């Protein structure tokens, strides 16, 4: 067995795990959980090994069936895809451990098996999107991802989840069909679906068929923008993410929408090259979308009474930060965006999981009911505070590092207005996160006589939360090691 077989083995392991779960229906559920953990652990280790391999030895090209890249499907494992698959595998493992602590809130017992089937297919499609080097193959994986996401949203058999899921299906289908239209136009102009080959012929194609390329680019920006919840196309996100069970909200908000923005980065930098983008002045469009999203997402978040909807709108604002980094179309911008993808992934996971624990034990999702919660559930509320402070961008957390990098990148490009927007958005974050923290730890009227009921939760739920809190702080204190990996990823995507 060769090292280059590892990516496909990762995908197949997820797929086989999803197929095996229904067959294990009669066995105790613990068996499924342990098997799933082994699979996830193996994939995490193998993608970590791949990350080391591609950074130190060589990039892996894997063609299916030994066909040439122009006929067949090609996987490329480079620092970019290896880094983000490792991040996804790590976050998914943490969320998986948490969800095994019997906290898949609101799902009926008989549906547990189906939930894990969906989870593993979701992971498979995300790995596929990152590994593949083929536009049409990306489309297929995107569709698998959106169907499983919808199913995971509607798995709670409640009224509002159905309407949320329906809206999600419609919006996402608009997005993927737009993306497919873009692929068709590019195929028309270049004759390839392989990303590397398209990238090589793009300059010629642009000279010959400029209309095709411009329309294709705009269709792809809109399609992937809808899927990544970039500001004017975000309307499906808060409903969908707040209706889903907490663990899947964590996956959706922390990982899934990031995968779409990574596809977006791939399309921008590998399919269309920077010269064409500069000529069309795409940068300005993206920056304006990002700026509006950063402000408006936070403004909407302030108005929310439901804590999970608030987190959903906060995701919209954070996607604006990431798009701001991408939209600068430069090394620094991408570096900041990639770092923010990682740090926001950690923080959003921590926020959703701690809120999930509170919802599970106290059965409340109103922001007002969080008063005094810090005395009853110190761990959950503590991790919530760390993550929320990170969102605001307090030093010592990873959020500070990403905002610092973003600010420096923006200044490099003389876009001072966006620095102002960044600061305003951070202040708006303060308005909706800080009161929760302060009231949770300082206002102890409601629960004064109930100090006995201090949180009594399974260790499988506490441990991932503590791990996330520690990771956020470690990433805030020592970002350099990770930064090296991220710079390698940026170099591989820009070359």
């Amino acid at each position, binding site marked *: 067995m060769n090292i280059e077989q590892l990516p496909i083995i990762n995908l197949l392991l997820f797929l086989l795990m999803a197929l095996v779960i229904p067959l294990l229906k009669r066995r105790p559920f613990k068996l499924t959980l342990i098997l799933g953990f082994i699979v996830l652990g193996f994939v995490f280790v193998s993608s970590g090994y791949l990350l080391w391999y591609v950074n130190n030895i060589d990039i892996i090209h894997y063609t299916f069936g030994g066909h040439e890249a122009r006929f067949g499907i090609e996987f490329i494992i480079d620092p970019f895809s290896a880094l983000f698959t490792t991040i996804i595998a790590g976050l998914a493992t943490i969320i998986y451990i948490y969800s095994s602590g019997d906290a898949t809130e609101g799902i009926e017992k008989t549906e547990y098996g189906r939930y894990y089937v969906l989870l593993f297919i979701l992971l498979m499609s995300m790995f596929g999107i990152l590994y593949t080097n083929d536009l049409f193959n990306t489309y297929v994986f995107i569709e698998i991802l959106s*169907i499983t996401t919808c199913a995971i949203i*509607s798995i709670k058999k409640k009224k509002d989840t159905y*309407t949320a899921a329906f809206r999600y*299906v419609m919006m996402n*289908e608009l997005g993927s*069909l737009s993306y*497919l*239209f873009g692929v068709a136009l590019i*195929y028309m102009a270049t004759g390839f679906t392989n990303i590397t080959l398209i990238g090589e012929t793009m300059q010629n194609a642009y000279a010959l068929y400029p209309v095709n390329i411009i329309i294709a680019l705009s269709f792809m920006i809109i399609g992937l923008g809808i899927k990544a919840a970039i500001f004017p196309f975000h309307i499906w996100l808060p409903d969908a993410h707040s209706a889903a069970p907490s663990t899947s909200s964590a996956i959706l908000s922390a990982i899934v929408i990031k995968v779409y923005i990574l596809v977006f980065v791939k399309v921008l930098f590998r399919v269309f090259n920077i010269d064409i983008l500069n000529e069309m002045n795409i940068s300005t469009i993206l920056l304006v979308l990002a700026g509006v999203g950063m402000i408006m997402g936070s403004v909407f978040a302030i108005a929310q009474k439901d804590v999970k909807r608030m987190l959903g709108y906060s995701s919209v604002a954070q996607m604006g930060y990431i798009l701001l980094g991408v939209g600068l179309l430069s090394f620094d911008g991408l570096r900041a965006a990639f770092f923010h993808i990682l740090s926001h992934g950690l923080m959003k996971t921590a926020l959703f999981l701690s809120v999930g624990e509170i919802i599970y034990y106290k059965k409340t999702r109103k922001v007002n009911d969080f008063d005094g919660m810090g005395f009853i559930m110190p761990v959950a509320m503590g991790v919530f505070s760390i993550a929320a402070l990170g969102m605001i961008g307090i030093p010592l957390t990873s959020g500070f590092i990403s905002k610092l990098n973003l600010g420096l990148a923006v200044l490099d490009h003389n876009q001072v207005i966006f620095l102002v927007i960044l600061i305003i958005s951070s202040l708006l974050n303060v308005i909706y996160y800080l009161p929760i923290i302060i009231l949770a730890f300082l206002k102890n009227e409601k629960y004064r006589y109930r100090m006995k009921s201090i949180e009594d939760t399974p260790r499988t739920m506490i441990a991932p939360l503590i791990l996330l809190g520690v990771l956020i702080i470690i990433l805030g204190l020592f970002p350099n090691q990770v930064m090296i990996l991220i710079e390698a990823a940026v170099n591989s995507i820009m070359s």
Partner: protein
Amino acid sequence: MLILEKIIDNINYIGAVALFVIGLRIVVTHSNLIKRIMGINIMGTGVFLFFVAIGNVTGGIPPIINNNQINPVYINPIPSVLILTGIVVVVSITVYSLSLVIRIYENYNTIDQTELSKLMSEEDNEH
């Protein structure tokens, strides 16, 4: 005349784009959920037609090896094969969203988006 010739040459593409736009309009403007699903299907058909039309070669034959033909001109089979996958995807999306509509109808007794929003906001106010 030149315009007319251009239209006839590109009739496949024009038809495909027209279907796409019709579908988009249905999805965005109609409030009936079933009609929206139909809109998605029409949009999908538009994109698929566009894709298949790219692979068309005037005077080409299906790319099946046949010894009777001398110097055959084949059409490009790759777009058709790709679109097969696309059709599967749209079928599954349709099935899934129809089942969601069944559920919505059971719970709210309506499949009209405007009435649905009204019912949902009333429920929100009660809480």
